[in-house]
């Protein structure tokens, strides 16, 4: 795909990005022993984006031929020229950016595992669950391999290719307890291809056993009480906290809309214990579940510190928002599919680990909760965030008590983060991570365990 860009080097009109992209997906779903889905998907094409009169024209077609490439450039220009009649009042010229050249292909040197082996792997896991745990009313396994393949050429000279894979297996179990259905799932896998994440199915039996035991605990669990409590958020939740509580609020397009972050730059918004970053590449420890080297505007990714020891320091920018705020772009502009325009997205967003020990953090909570596994989450312009919690425990007198049923926790980030009283020395990257904001996007999320005060949605 990279070579298809060659004829257009130095020939693109001013302020033009040309992107060739394919999204590859392989998914297998097995529910109660039945293969419900066994599907490959490959969707791709070429797009061009042109800036004129302070606005963008964008066009995409599902083809990579020379005719298609020329036509998208021409049509994108025509789209952009429409704004001559509808002046935007926005600055046309964006600050110049250092061009980047490079290839990051995470398939290179890797063995591609045949579908038959992957299917057999999944069926082996399913059989293990069915044989060992016949009391389950539902067992569901979902294998999902998703790779984004992009070649990008910009009029200012960036020419790059990135192939970024991620492979996950989600295992969901359910029991009926008295009159209630109780479900719990776990995610295995992460960055890379199947061969990078999975070897023998037997290596995952222990995880399944633990999941089953947790499910049984949850079935006998209690509903949370509603109100504000002191809680421990396990390191598995820190990532979604970083993403939802702060991340979205500091995406510069939302700041321009009016998110509260607009009013708090260089002010204290969190405890001194909180340092929150958004990194490119695979983050500084090389373990994030995604990789972004150059964004879809051709800007090399810069690691940024959004909150530095409690003080809000940076937003995440594309070229236009960087212009607006008179700063440098950070390489946060990304598009999900070939037919999507790039918008500001997070990359690998995390809270830095601290120095406390998890056991000690729990022991210091008199009446609260230890939340262990998240589900979905959502952010807000007010910095109020929420995410679902599907597994955790009560804490009474510094000790873990009953497991809890599903709940939702929330808070106003710029208030809640000031209540953080301890940060553990762990660092866990979420294995999955899919963000929705006009388009979906693979993101990395991670962090340590955190003790704070938070609102818990519960029964009275």
């Amino acid at each position, binding site marked *: 795909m990279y070579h298809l860009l060659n004829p257009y080097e130095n020939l693109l009109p001013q302020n033009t990005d040309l992107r060739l992209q394919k999204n590859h997906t392989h998914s297998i779903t097995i529910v109660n022993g039945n293969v419900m889905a*066994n599907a490959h998907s490959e969707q791709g094409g070429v797009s061009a984006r042109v800036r004129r009169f302070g606005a963008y024209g964008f*066009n995409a077609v599902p083809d990579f031929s020379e005719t298609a490439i020329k036509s998208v450039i021409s049509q994108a220009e025509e789209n952009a020229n429409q704004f001559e009649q*509808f002046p935007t009042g926005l600055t046309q010229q964006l600050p110049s950016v250092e061009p980047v050249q490079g290839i990051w292909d995470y398939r290179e040197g890797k063995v591609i595992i045949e579908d038959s082996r992957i299917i057999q792997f999944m069926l082996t896991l399913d059989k293990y669950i069915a044989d060992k745990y016949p009391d389950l009313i539902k067992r*569901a396994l979902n294998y999902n391999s998703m790779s984004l393949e992009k070649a990008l050429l910009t009029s200012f000279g960036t020419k790059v290719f990135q192939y970024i894979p991620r492979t996950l297996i989600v295992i969901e179990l359910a029991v009926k307890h008295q009159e209630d259905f109780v479900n719990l799932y776990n995610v295995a896998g992460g960055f890379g291809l199947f061969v990078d994440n999975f070897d023998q199915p037997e290596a995952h039996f222990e995880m399944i056993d633990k999941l089953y035991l947790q499910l049984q605990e949850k079935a006998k669990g209690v509903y949370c009480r*509603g109100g*504000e409590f002191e809680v421990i958020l396990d390191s598995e939740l820190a990532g979604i906290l970083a993403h939802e509580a702060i991340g979205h609020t500091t995406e510069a397009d939302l700041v321009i809309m009016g998110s509260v972050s607009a009013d708090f730059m260089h002010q204290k918004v969190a405890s001194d214990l909180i340092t929150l970053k958004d990194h490119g590449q695979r983050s500084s420890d090389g373990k994030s579940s995604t990789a972004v080297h150059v964004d879809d505007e051709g800007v090399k990714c810069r690691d940024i510190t959004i909150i530095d020891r409690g003080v809000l320091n940076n937003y995440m920018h594309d070229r236009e928002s960087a212009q607006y705020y008179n700063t440098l772009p950070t390489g946060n502009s990304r598009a999900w599919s070939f037919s999507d325009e790039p918008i500001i997205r997070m990359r690998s967003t995390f809270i830095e680990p601290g120095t406390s020990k998890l056991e000690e953090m729990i022991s210091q909570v008199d009446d609260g909760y230890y939340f262990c596994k998240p589900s979905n989450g959502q952010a807000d*312009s007010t910095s109020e965030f929420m995410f679902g919690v599907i597994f955790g425990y009560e804490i009474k007198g510094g000790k873990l008590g009953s497991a809890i049923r599903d709940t*939702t926790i929330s808070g106003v980030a710029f208030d809640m983060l000031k209540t953080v009283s301890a940060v553990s020395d762990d660092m866990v990257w979420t294995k999955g991570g899919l963000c929705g904001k006009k388009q979906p996007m693979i993101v990395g999320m991670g962090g340590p365990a955190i003790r704070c005060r938070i*609102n818990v949605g519960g029964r009275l």
Partner: protein
Amino acid sequence: MLDKSEIIDYTIQQASALGADMCQARLVYNNKYELNADNRALTLLRTYDTVNLNVTVIKNKRKGSLTIGKTDRESINEGLKTAIANTEHVPEDSALDVMPKREAEHYTNGDSIPDREAIFSELQVFVKDLRQEYPRIRLSTTNNSFSREQLWFGNSNGLRLTSDNGMYLFILTFMAKENLKATSFNFSVTINPKPLGRLLNLEQVQRNLYNSERSIDPKPIPESFTGDLIFSPESCEDFMETILNSISGNALFSKNTPYLDKLGEVIASPELTIVGHPASDEFPAADHFGAYGAKIEKLPIITKGRLDNHLISYYFSKKLNKPLTCDGSPGIEVKPGHLSLEELISNVERGVLLGRFSGGNPNANLDFSGIAKNSFYIEKGKIKNALTETMIAGNIQSLIKSIKGISIEQTGQMSSGKFPFIACTGVDISSGRSSAGANI
């Protein structure tokens, strides 16, 4: 190069030639014309074409599937080989089948090319007039667009169906802000087969913008309590999706639903009637036919509280040995009731008018908890104030049994269909910030 109309026939013939016992293929062309704006100006004109060819092959009662974005012979042949090869590695499934043949059907709805002038002028006028009529409103990710979907479907039994749907969409994301005070973001989606006209006149848009502007000074609830909840059409649409998922073939098959054996039984208040509709001008985003080619017909889902139908696709009808009822995505209508919104509010002793729900996905038991966004506190029949940091929790099974009233007002042109306001009771409402909200 194959003509669009030849691709399905070619795919099915090739599948058979390569050894498939059965095959179905679904070819979708999408064209989009989308004008975007944000708080400052018109920002982006985006146009695209996409093509998706989805093929399912069945060989020896085993399934393989493929979706590709190409329709040339070589790509189709390679794709079929992969899909057929994949059938060898999965267990047999006796429920796998394709629909029997019936007479060919062709459906058309809406425009086939965008009214570009209307799209531009509508959004430009909207951005300009918004500043004057709703000065506190700030826009994000707002677009006015036209979308056309051309669909060809066929299977190895000779079934052939086509549809050609054009629709206009206005997607609005916004918040209100005044100095340092800001509301939650809110959004609305309005769909129509023809251009939408003056966007500020759309009922959903007007109502939500007005509510955001008067939410600039929210307060938490004074104390935690168990009370009433009035769903807005938007939050009603959200919760209805959960209910419909829990009566789907998928849920029945995994036995992971409280409605498994409830067909014909009363599961909700007699106030509640929900109907599924095929695509039409009133339900432009609905399907004409489903994933297996079954025609979408008008379907009573819940009638005066009684569960009339589960939503069972062609595959699950075979799997569960139950009648096929709904093979795709119908337009959903929750029938209006007999009370005005004002009357619903006046009947509330203490409760919340729920604008938007932001919470963890309800579980299989239909327990839910989350934040009441863009919502208002009601006390003694009157709206007291907009709410902040307020959580609601309950169980959807109980809620729909506890319906106190449904509004005469019903909002249409929504992405899933038409929804009214619904008042229920028995919801736990709490806030960590209320004076008696901590550690109850």
